């Protein structure tokens, strides 16, 4: 259950048996052809995989360097990569005979994905969400409720993703016998980071096949945004052994990594344990977790998946950060040049592309994981654009 030093299972004893049971069930499922087939069926016939690979000609010209390709996870059912993992864990929950799922959510994408899967499979669903995120992601909250899920407003701490996760874990501790905790990012105790990575690897696997078909080779660099890091790990993992492919993860620098308002865990964090695994963390000198900040509810998290911590330490993946302002600029560029409204999370990866593509040659290929669509973010975007106007 470790990635180098990172990972592990730092949870109350009450949950340990459930984690062992889950690990066992996951191992069995992996060996079971019928599970694989059921998952493929849901991914392809329900969620609409494979997602498209789009060449962004006008964006490439505008940024003036590498040729930019977009892996279109925004075209998934419910509008983000989250559904890949939610469908898989949902099938696992059914296999384990659990009738209730719980989930935490930040941007609401994982909450919507979980509520969707619960509806599709006939499970009951509770989604824990910070009060601040509920405000920022009104559309997704309503979608979850329409899908029949109960959205539980979390008032503790900064009222964002971290706090929602705490509450989800507390609920799980109290209801571990019949409840499946459907974790949405590559975080949490073992086996979650591994499981989520495996379930999201379809992104990178499809990308490899599509790139080979479209350009006859692999891209020179692959970019993804990193909050907990599930879209990034799903994209990166299949590329790990291709040493020629540079991998770059983009964290949220909020108002700047030199301010106190950011979520740049790898840039500014120290090793620590949050939500069951050892990784890098934003924390104070007493080991208290500090409140992260990002305009993006999905990146507003003080931790990061343990495998990312490991990939950073072994220098296989390069991690950089992007501010709110840079992300919003890149979001507008993609709208106006390619007709695609990305999630603000995703816009962080695109802002790096704006900065970086021009340093590359026109023969180079830069692949971006377009992790989700931005419809859920229009309120935030509107507020930001209006604030800019004065």
């Amino acid at each position, binding site marked *: 259950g470790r990635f180098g030093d990172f990972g592990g299972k730092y*949870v109350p004893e009450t949950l340990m048996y459930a984690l062992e049971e889950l690990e066992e069930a996951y191992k069995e499922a992996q060996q079971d052809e019928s599970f694989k087939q059921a998952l493929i069926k849901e991914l392809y016939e329900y969620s609409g995989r494979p997602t498209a690979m789009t060449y962004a000609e006008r964006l490439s010209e505008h940024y003036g360097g590498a040729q930019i390709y977009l892996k279109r996870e925004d075209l998934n059912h419910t509008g983000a990569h989250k559904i890949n993992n939610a469908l898989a864990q949902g099938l696992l929950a059914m296999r384990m005979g659990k009738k209730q799922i719980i989930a935490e959510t930040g941007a609401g994408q994982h909450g919507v994905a979980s509520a969707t899967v619960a509806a599709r499979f006939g499970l009951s669903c509770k989604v824990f969400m910070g009060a601040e995120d509920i405000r920022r992601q009104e559309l997704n909250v309503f979608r979850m409720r329409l899908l029949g899920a109960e959205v539980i407003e979390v008032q503790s701490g900064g009222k964002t993703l971290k706090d929602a996760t705490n509450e989800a874990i507390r609920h799980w501790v109290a209801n571990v016998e019949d409840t499946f905790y459907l974790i949405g990012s590559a975080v949490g105790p073992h086996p979650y980071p591994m499981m989520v990575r495996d379930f999201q690897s379809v992104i990178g696997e499809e990308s490899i096949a599509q790139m080979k078909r479209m350009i006859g080779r692999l891209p020179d660099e692959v970019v993804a945004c990193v909050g907990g890091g599930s879209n990034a790990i799903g994209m990166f993992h299949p590329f790990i052994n291709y040493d020629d492919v540079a991998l770059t993860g983009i964290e949220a620098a909020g108002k700047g990594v030199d301010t106190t308002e950011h979520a740049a865990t790898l840039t500014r964090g120290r*090793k620590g344990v949050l939500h069951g695994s050892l990784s890098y963390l934003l924390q104070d000198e007493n080991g*208290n977790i500090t409140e992260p900040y990002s305009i993006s509810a999905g990146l507003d998290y003080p931790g990061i998946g343990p495998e990312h911590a490991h990939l950073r330490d072994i220098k296989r993946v390069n991690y950089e950060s992007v501010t709110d302002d840079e992300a919003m600029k890149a979001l507008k560029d993609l709208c106006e040049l390619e007709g695609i409204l990305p999630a603000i999370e995703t816009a962080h990866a695109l802002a790096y592309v704006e900065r970086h593509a021009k340093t590359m040659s026109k023969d180079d290929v830069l692949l971006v994981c377009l992790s989700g669509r931005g419809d859920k973010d229009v309120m935030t975007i509107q507020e930001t654009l209006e604030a800019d106007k004065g």
Partner: protein
Amino acid sequence: MNRLKQDAFQSKKERFVPYIMSSDPSYEASIDIALTLEEAGVDAIEWGVPFSDPLADGPVIQEAGDRARKAGGGLRRAVEGAKEARAKGLTVPLVLFTYINPVLSVGFKEVIELMEDADMDGILIPDLPFEESEELRALCNEKGISLISLVAPSSKNRMEKISRLGDGFIYYVTSLGVTGTRESFAEELSESIQKLRDVASVPVLAGFGISTREHVQHFQSIADGVIVGSALVRFISEREDTLLQANREKPLQEIKSFIEELCS
């Protein structure tokens, strides 16, 4: 020498161990409360370290942690308070109750050395299951500090493995869920606790949700003692104002009566 391992604790019956949060509502008040608990006749004290994300705790202890952090509490400060309590004459076993991240943040080695210096006896980390505890356990063993293990009803076949590592005492989580007071307990608990006592070489104390004299009596009868946390912490929180005054005799007296009442 580790007081948990001494005969006074090991051979006692009907142990009563309260949990309080260090620096709640202030550094000094929490030390006075500890001394008062000893006067009330408790057998050991769990000495809480405030933490931002206490995911095994319910709202009562979360809020105590928030108060303690505002009052400047933290891991180093908690051990400092323990040392001061010892200096003021505290003699019961003292167990540091902390989440793993503050320990990692200070460093395993330094934490254990600080605890030794403060003459503390045990450490209990609810989010450090035995699988992840090897390094810290070795350091504890070296310094003679007990790393307290927890067992839950959901531990199932893990119970035996854990009981083998039992040191000082074993904390039996009497219900699923986080800390907090509860109305009723599952019937099967009695059987499960007995099973654990059969294999454990140290006392088995029951905790989580024990809040009334009836609960205490019930668990004293089926376990080797009880741990009371949220009920006491709430009682303290209701006296925050008076405990913050220079003369805190009255609330301390009330706390003493509260404990005596619970144990009677």
